[in-house]
């Protein structure tokens, strides 16, 4: 036997061995229990298994987005705080440092040009991300963020969202959740085996922003309103308050559909927030005026656990513990404001506003008539960290486990019967040649599955469709070869040279036609999302392997055949009388 042929046989045998090794872990795998059934001595490099897509195993695919504008405004607010406190400590006088959330700019006003020069010099030196967009040289200067800095901030914000959501999902014990950043401002969560999509979504979208704010002397506005008018008036205005010293400082608290508050000009550093009824819903009858200048952020938590308060008969509570930084600030404020009311504000609702009896350092409690599950979820999101930006669901796809199982069943049925139809037809049309083409086809399917296992790729329902399509398309190469060989036989060539001519003349045609199909598949791989990507993957693999199996493998079979039987007839479904001179 020629040396080249032996090498090729060796190559194919090697590839087949690797394929079988790669496929075994997927066969010996408990997909329900999500554990491998392989013996422990199995080599780790061959232990990847086929991953079923969410459409096949059931689960949730969620895309959420972060608002770039909001991330920028948050950052500007942070700068504004820094500028104010630093200018105060440097004794640079200023009238106002303000952030416009709609225009996304930061403005600084000065009382005179001397402080303006000093102040703008300081900002120019310390905040390279900012540049003056309006009012250069005047007493009011408007700054905006440089574009590169804004991109940076968005990126950081998105990364943070990804991490926090990852921590939140950990508590649900899902198998292999996958959370990735997608595009500029999106995060995709792929969560297999979700049983309660509603609860998951709630846990993802809530900000979990916890704050502690001192209740202002204005007190509960409802009481004020009741004193004045004996209850909420018919209009939406529930409570109003006017600063006796400054009539411009007045507060009005509206509730439209029980969820949104509009606020008028409020006294400096005063924020109006609704209270919460014991049922956990927004309570339309209470409105708190809170001091924004005396707050402790709940971001500095060490731990949060659900628990029961023996005095609280109405439900579960969440106990939390501050870290060092949080405890210091909390201790300072509670120490300074004994006998005042401190509001526990969760996601912009006042959960409770107990009176500070004595200085508290490191622990506290959130009550709000939670059920056990709510308290568990709340403790989880608090532990995982608060989101400083709101996130929005852009896309959601949930597949129930039973539909997934049904899809697997149907996909496999289609693949099976599709293959049987093609295999039978090929034998019917090309007799022995058909059998050889079928062997190439089966090897192709083996290679696709092995490659999917080896790379831990995801098999989706469209992926199964891609395999079915490949089954139909991959015999094309052999058809081209056989048709060519038939022509050569008809002009009187010997079986062996007819087959060789078939392979060599059809080669470029096979390559051309497969490369163009591959172009279509690769474009889909680049632009497709989710399950469609699975289709592109199996189709691309199938095209590549089909060239290999038909051009290399089926040829080896013929060459071996001609090696053992020099004068073998070429059975490709036609009868040709050997031409007289051909022997």
């Amino acid at each position: 036997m020629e040396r080249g042929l032996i090498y090729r046989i060796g190559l194919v045998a090697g590839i087949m061995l690797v394929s079988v090794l790669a496929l075994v872990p997927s066969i010996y795998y408990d997909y329900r229990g999500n554990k491998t059934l392989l013996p422990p001595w199995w080599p780790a490099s061959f232990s990847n298994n086929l991953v079923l897509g969410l459409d096949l195993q059931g689960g949730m695919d969620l895309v959420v987005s972060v608002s770039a504008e909001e991330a920028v405004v948050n950052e500007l607010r942070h700068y504004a705080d820094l500028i104010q406190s630093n200018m105060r400590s440097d004794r640079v006088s200023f009238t106002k440092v303000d952030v416009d959330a709609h225009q996304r700019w930061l403005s600084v006003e000065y009382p005179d040009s001397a402080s303006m020069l000093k102040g703008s010099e300081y900002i120019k030196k310390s905040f390279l991300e900012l540049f003056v967009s309006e009012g250069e040289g005047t007493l009011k200067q408007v700054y905006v963020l440089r574009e590169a800095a804004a991109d940076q901030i968005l990126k950081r914000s998105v990364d943070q969202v990804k991490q926090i959501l990852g921590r939140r999902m950990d508590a649900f014990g899902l198998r292999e959740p996958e959370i990735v950043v997608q595009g500029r401002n999106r995060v995709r969560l792929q969560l297999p085996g979700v049983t309660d999509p509603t609860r998951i979504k709630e846990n993802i979208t809530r900000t979990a922003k916890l704050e502690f704010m001192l209740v202002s002397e204005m007190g509960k506005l409802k009481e004020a309103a009741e004193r004045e008018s004996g209850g909420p008036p018919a209009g939406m205005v529930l409570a109003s308050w006017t600063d006796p010293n400054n009539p411009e400082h007045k507060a009005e608290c509206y509730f439209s559909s029980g969820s949104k508050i509009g606020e008028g000009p409020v006294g400096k550093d005063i924020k109006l927030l609704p209270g919460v009824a014991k049922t956990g819903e927004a309570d339309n009858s209470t409105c708190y005026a809170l001091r924004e200048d005396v707050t402790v952020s709940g971001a500095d938590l060490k731990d949060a656990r659900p628990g029961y308060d023996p005095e609280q008969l109405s439900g579960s509570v969440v106990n939390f513990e501050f870290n060092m930084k949080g405890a210091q600030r909390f201790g300072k404020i509670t120490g300074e404001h004994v006998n005042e009311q401190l509001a526990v504000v969760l996601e912009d609702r006042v959960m409770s506003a107990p009176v500070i009896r004595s200085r508290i350092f490191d622990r506290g409690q959130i009550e709000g008539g939670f059920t056990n599950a709510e308290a568990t979820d709340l403790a989880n999101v608090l532990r995982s960290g608060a989101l400083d930006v709101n996130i929005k669901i852009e896309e959601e796809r949930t597949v129930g486990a039973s539909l997934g199982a049904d899809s697997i069943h149907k996909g496999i049925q289609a693949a099976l019967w599709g293959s049987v139809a093609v295999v039978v037809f090929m034998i019917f049309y090309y007799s022995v040649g058909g059998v050889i083409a079928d062997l190439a086809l089966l090897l192709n399917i083996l290679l696709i599955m092995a490659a999917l296992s080896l790379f831990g790729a995801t098999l989706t329902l469209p992926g199964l469709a891609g395999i079915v399509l490949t089954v139909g398309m991959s015999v094309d190469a052999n058809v081209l070869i056989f048709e060519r060989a038939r022509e050569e036989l008809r002009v009187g060539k010997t079986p062996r040279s007819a087959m060789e001519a078939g392979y060599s003349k059809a080669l470029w045609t096979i390559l051309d036609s497969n490369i163009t199909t591959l172009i279509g598949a690769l474009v889909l791989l680049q632009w497709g999302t989710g399950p469609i990507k699975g289709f592109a993957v199996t189709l691309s693999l199938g095209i590549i392997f089909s060239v290999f199996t038909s051009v290399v493998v089926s040829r080896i079979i013929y060459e071996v055949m001609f090696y053992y039987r020099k004068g073998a007839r070429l059975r490709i479904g036609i009868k040709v009388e050997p031409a007289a001179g051909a022997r």
Partner: protein
Amino acid sequence: MEVIKPGSKIDFIKIMPYAIVVSALLVTVSLCGIFIWPKPNWGIDFAGGTEIQVAFKQPIEMGKLREAMESLRVGDVKVQEWLGTGKANTNFLIRLEKLAEEPAATATETQPGGTAAGATGKTTTMVEAKITEVFGKGSFEILKSDYVGPKVGKELRNQGALAVIIANLLILVYVSLRFEFRYAFGAVIALFHDAIISAGLIVFTQKSFDLTIIAALLSIVGYSINDTIVVFDRIRENLSRHRRMTLFETVNAATNETLSRTLLTSFVTWLAVFCLWLLGGSSINGFAFCMMMGIIVGTYSSVFVASAYVVYTERLRDRRRTAAAATAGK
């Protein structure tokens, strides 16, 4: 076995004018279908909205379900039964479109509750709650639910169209590299022809035009070029082998010689896709249908449309040449 006997001498050049008329007609009708009437029945991927497949344990009245959904007042409601494996009146497809746009979450707005998902992100939850309220807990199962926000829907649509165009351009580049540009252009015209007519068929049957249809169109584009290339390869081979033959004769001969292969491979692939259509279940049904039609159109186009382009440009060139020779002779 042989379907097309060797030495078949069908005069494709003669049939071509009719084929061109038919093709032009089909393309025009399809384009009208896509852009004027009846327009694609955009699936949830592209239209945006919520689509929920729900299976009830006991048969229910569809009217009651529709009423319940309409009472949610979140957008246009469509409820239809789909034939799964279950009993009659148990499987339904609920579709909510044109969902009320949620207010943009700006940083200034206080949003009590902290959930900024807005009404649209919550429709699935609302639908589930409503069905539970009307039909009772545990009486049904949500098999599948999809929500696509308006922004994502638009992006997906643009990306899909872009993908089809890019695939065509890349194929144009590759075929130009391997053949003459003239051939490549003919091949790509055939591809657009296939993609447009296949899309037209989906539009006229009012099947849901979703992401899987885009996948099918791209596969059709990638697949139908195969046949065209086989024919072109043979034309090129014959041109260098039989120098005395005219281009028309060569094209005719090449198409005849490859006809058996063209029909055979198309049939085998069609057979596989047919099984997919028959057995693959509802989620893959539209895809398989589109592929089945696309393979037929693609096979026809590689025999008639692609070579027709080459033949007619050649004829045009010849005419110009003779005209030029005539004027030069005077």
